[in-house]
């Protein structure tokens, strides 16, 4: 059963793809089953969370917009992507241990469980994007935008796909580590918290850079976080309007200038870095998981 051949792996996957579907179906259905509002929570939860953050920042910190984009919307974009990442990776991390009962009794390709959990979170994430679309229409952000909406949607898919691949890789990696060390759960919780503040969700990178001597270095460090690029890319697609500004280096100085990446919405460097890293992390996750999976049963 441990044959390396791709053909065997593919046939095996095809046999168990039904299980993958059932797991996605189950997770999506069960998530809100015992609540009165049911699936409405898929929309309501991100909305309420965003409202809380938005309340904190617009009322307590007096923030109304980021470069012309209503702060509520700005927040929502980042938060939706970020919570997809943390939810899916956390679920994937726990999935192998949660399904220990089956894994110890019946042969199933183990990766089905982390994969199924990332996929089901992805489904709820896609559903929750409806809220975002609603707000975009409400605030009429697309005003003055010359591209057709369909093209924008097309461009928005790219960061989402990158995020999906990245989350899958991190999920597989965490799942294989956490079987051996339960500490992973706690450490990862803390790391996610840190990551939240390292990603431009509640702030705009421009705020942080403003009037800072070492802004260059800081920006470089922040950009190492792939979520930074992914969120920025996604937001640029959603909000790009001729007035949107970004910090750009010009003659050794940081100056605000119009985003000059049209018609690509995101810079090639950002795209290549995040996509490349996602692929590398995915390959690493798959490799580690594949190498370790036969030992799982001894630790479950």
């Amino acid at each position, binding site marked *: 059963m441990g044959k390396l051949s791709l053909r065997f792996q593919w046939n095996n996957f095809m046999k*168990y793809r039904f299980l993958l579907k*059932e797991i996605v179906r189950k997770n999506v259905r069960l998530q809100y089953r*015992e609540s009165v509002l049911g699936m409405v929570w898929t929309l309501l939860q991100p909305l309420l969370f965003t409202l809380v953050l938005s309340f904190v920042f617009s009322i307590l910190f007096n923030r109304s917009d980021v470069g012309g984009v209503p702060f509520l919307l700005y927040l929502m974009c980042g938060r939706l992507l970020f919570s997809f990442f943390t939810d899916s990776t956390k679920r994937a991390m726990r999935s192998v241990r949660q399904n220990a009962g089956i894994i*110890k009794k*019946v042969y199933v390709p183990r990766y089905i469980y982390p994969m199924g959990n990332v996929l089901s979170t992805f489904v709820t994430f896609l559903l929750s994007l409806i809220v975002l679309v609603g707000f975009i229409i409400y605030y009429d952000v697309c005003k003055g935008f010359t591209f057709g909406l369909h093209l924008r949607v097309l461009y928005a898919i790219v960061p989402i796909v990158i995020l999906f691949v990245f989350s899958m890789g991190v999920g597989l990696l965490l799942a294989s580590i956490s079987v051996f060390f339960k500490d992973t759960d706690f450490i990862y919780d803390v790391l996610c918290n840190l990551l939240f503040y390292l990603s431009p969700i509640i702030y705009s990178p421009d705020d942080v850079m403003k009037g800072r001597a070492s802004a260059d270095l800081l920006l470089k460090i922040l950009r190492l976080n792939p979520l930074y690029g992914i969120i920025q890319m996604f937001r640029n697609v959603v909000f790009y309007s001729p007035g949107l500004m970004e910090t750009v280096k010009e003659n050794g100085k940081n100056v605000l200038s119009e985003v000059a990446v049209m018609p690509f919405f995101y810079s090639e460097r950002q795209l290549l870095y995040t996509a490349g890293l996602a692929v590398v992390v995915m390959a690493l996750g798959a490799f580690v998981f594949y190498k370790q999976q036969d030992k799982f049963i001894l630790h479950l």
Partner: protein
Amino acid sequence: MNEPAIRLDKVSMRFNLNRERVDNIKEYFIKFMRHQLHYNEFWALRDVSFTVQKGERLGVMGLNGAGKSTLLKVIAGVMKPTHGIMEINGNIAPLIELGAGFDMNYSGGENIYLYGATLGFSRKQIKEIWKEIVDFSGLKDFIDVPVKNYSSGMRARLGFAIACMVEPDILILDEVLSVGDAPFKKKSEAKIMELFDRGVTVIFVSHSMEQVEKLCNKAILLEKGQVVASGYTDSVCEEYKRRMQEQKK
């Protein structure tokens, strides 16, 4: 019918038994630095070879710790042997700890699809036999109730019904022939006999010689992870008795 359903060739399984359990990074790191990560080697199976033809029913006997459960896990594909080659032809359904694959918050009816998929069957395939499974389990009135509200007997009945109704090629039995109350027990025995008649391959693990003699036509005897006797049930049982006598002396 001369095609092997299961073929094991010199299958060995080694465990590294930690003297102490190390399951957090700090401990692991400290022990690693102090070179204290010692393991005791333990061979649960040593060079186990046998072939089960399609339609044969193999009884696996042996005392506690002889390696029966490990062997089952290897055959089920759950554990990968340290050495050796294993070939399996067909779909395996384990009748071990029935209901292990259920999601407690999911209703009984939905769990049929989930468990079916765990055994490698598509939703379409399960749909065709869904009603049969429900009827067999006798849980028609509870089928929309979450499994967490089932009694353990109800869970076992549903698990049994699914594992039998999907008509696997290879059935793994681990002394679980006593599921549910007397009427259900009778029904389940009849179902297993029906599967036998259809030529399902069976691996049956038991301490009990009577059960093995009743159900199986072939048997192997394990001792300390090695096959010490194999062949027709009666001769292996003879050997088992002889060895037990010897031990008593």
